[in-house]
């Protein structure tokens, strides 16, 4: 099967001399749920943003669905971007607009001319957005201001916006880093079921090792801009974790005892 995404020796050096990515290569196939883990500053966020060219790369090639992303500009770049949904740590909604308008923003990439500029969405799009919102349990809030929602609800709107794009690939940048544990679980479950049902490949940046182990079909470990681990979660053993994070597993779990450790392994 043709991979949805292929990284070929991708490198990124920022103008201030920081090497965020070095020689990163991997492939993503349809239906995969990949977690990218690594300490802060290991290049997780840059990796994700290199895929839809929110950050231009300085070396190598990113190939999305057979097209090289780094060659695209203007209209073609936007066409590439609309095929890739993205979810952010801080939700990145337009808080003064309604929940429904925020969800419909997912269709902007498909709209041309004045209709897009003035936000005249088609009735079909609106119905689809409403259906999506009720699937997520937000139907009562569709005409509220986005700023009135709680953190977990905002992130659900973020997911709905990304799904509206009908993407082939979903990128999630620390989707649960600003949420409490119970909302985090809701969001991760939603991400899992939404992508599974629609056959969308999903790449998630995560800080929480236990969450990564529980949900993903594959884990990529980044350290100092290089891939140090790429494989199924079962293969991620303590020595690997130590290599990724530069510290032992016990130090990563808050109050992590031997029992907790056993729990998380069982989850995986």
């Amino acid at each position, binding site marked *: 099967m043709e991979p949805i995404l292929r990284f070929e020796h991708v490198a990124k050096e920022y103008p201030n001399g920081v090497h965020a990515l070095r020689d990163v290569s991997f492939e993503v196939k349809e239906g995969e749920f990949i977690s990218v883990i690594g300490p802060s500053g290991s290049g997780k966020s840059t990796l994700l943003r290199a895929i839809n060219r929110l950050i231009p790369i300085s070396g190598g090639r990113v190939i999305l669905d057979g097209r090289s992303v780094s060659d695209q500009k203007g209209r073609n770049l936007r066409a590439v971007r609309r095929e890739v949904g993205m979810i952010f740590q801080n939700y990145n909604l337009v808080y*003064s*607009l*309604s929940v*429904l*308008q925020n969800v*419909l923003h997912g269709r902007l990439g498909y709209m041309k001319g004045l209709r897009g500029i003035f*936000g005249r*969405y088609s*009735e079909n799009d*609106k*119905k689809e957005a*409403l259906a999506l919102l009720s699937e997520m349990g937000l139907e009562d809030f569709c*005409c*509220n*201001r986005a700023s009135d929602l709680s953190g977990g609800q905002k992130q659900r709107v973020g997911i709905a916006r990304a799904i509206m794009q009908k993407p082939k690939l979903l990128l999630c940048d620390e989707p649960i880093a600003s949420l409490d544990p119970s909302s985090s679980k809701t969001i991760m479950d939603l991400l899992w079921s939404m992508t599974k049902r629609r056959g969308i490949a999903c790449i998630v940046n995560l800080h929480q090792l236990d969450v990564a182990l529980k949900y993903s079909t594959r884990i990529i470990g980044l350290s100092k801009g290089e891939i140090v681990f790429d494989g199924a979660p079962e293969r991620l053993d303590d020595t690997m974790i130590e290599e990724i994070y530069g510290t032992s597993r016990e130090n990563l779990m808050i109050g992590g005892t031997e029992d907790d450790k056993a729990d998380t392994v069982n989850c995986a």
Partner: protein
Amino acid sequence: MNREKISVKCRQRNRFIPGFLIGVAVLTVISLLYLKIDWLKMASRVPDIGGVFWELAHLDFSNMDLIFSSLVETVSIAVLSLLYSLLLGILFGMLAAKNVFKHPILSAAVQSFFTFLRAVPTPVWVLLMLVCLGMGPEAGVAGLCVHTTAFFTKSFAQSFEDIPEETIEALEVTGTGRLSIFFNAVLPASLGQIVAWAGMRLETNFSECAILGMVGAGGIGYVISNSLQGYDYGTAGVAILLVFLVAYMIERVFVRIKRKFN
């Protein structure tokens, strides 16, 4: 099947803003019609602006000593008026704040007096001071002080009133006097804001000071207006460039200082 259009907008959005925008647009059109500006004539002279800038760019440093001494005088007047007004502003701000002496009539009286002083543009005060005191830095400093003190009184009183009531109560119950509450609790707590206001005001004071000369109070403004009227564009160019540089420096320095206090 429901054929009605689905509304996507917020239920409780701000309905005031569209009306406001329309109001502003209407007022602007009326204003432009009322002003009866001869746009064609203006447009026909636009090429002359380029000519003036071309002349200004031929910097003439021969009058450097005059330019420099008047620039120093202007900066000094701006700084002096700022410092005097800071002291006066703290004093009157203390009187104007409702929570320092708890004397509503006193603070209302002080507030409204300074609201009046603030409403009259600075050059008017300077002109009046010139009439009383004659030419010289005294008129400039005094004139600028009126407006600056009025500005500080209002903003400092605002900062003082923002201090939580509990802080003052806590000291009141210990039997501390009003004045020492002010100097030990209220003033230190608003020091950061006072510095921020002062920095913002120094920028304004310098640019106002630079224009004072144009109404006849000496300083760099006088050099600029005089040499422009005498077609001595080279000298004017140097003076304008220096005014720009000093204003820019003040802005940069206070951006730094504000960061330190945050």
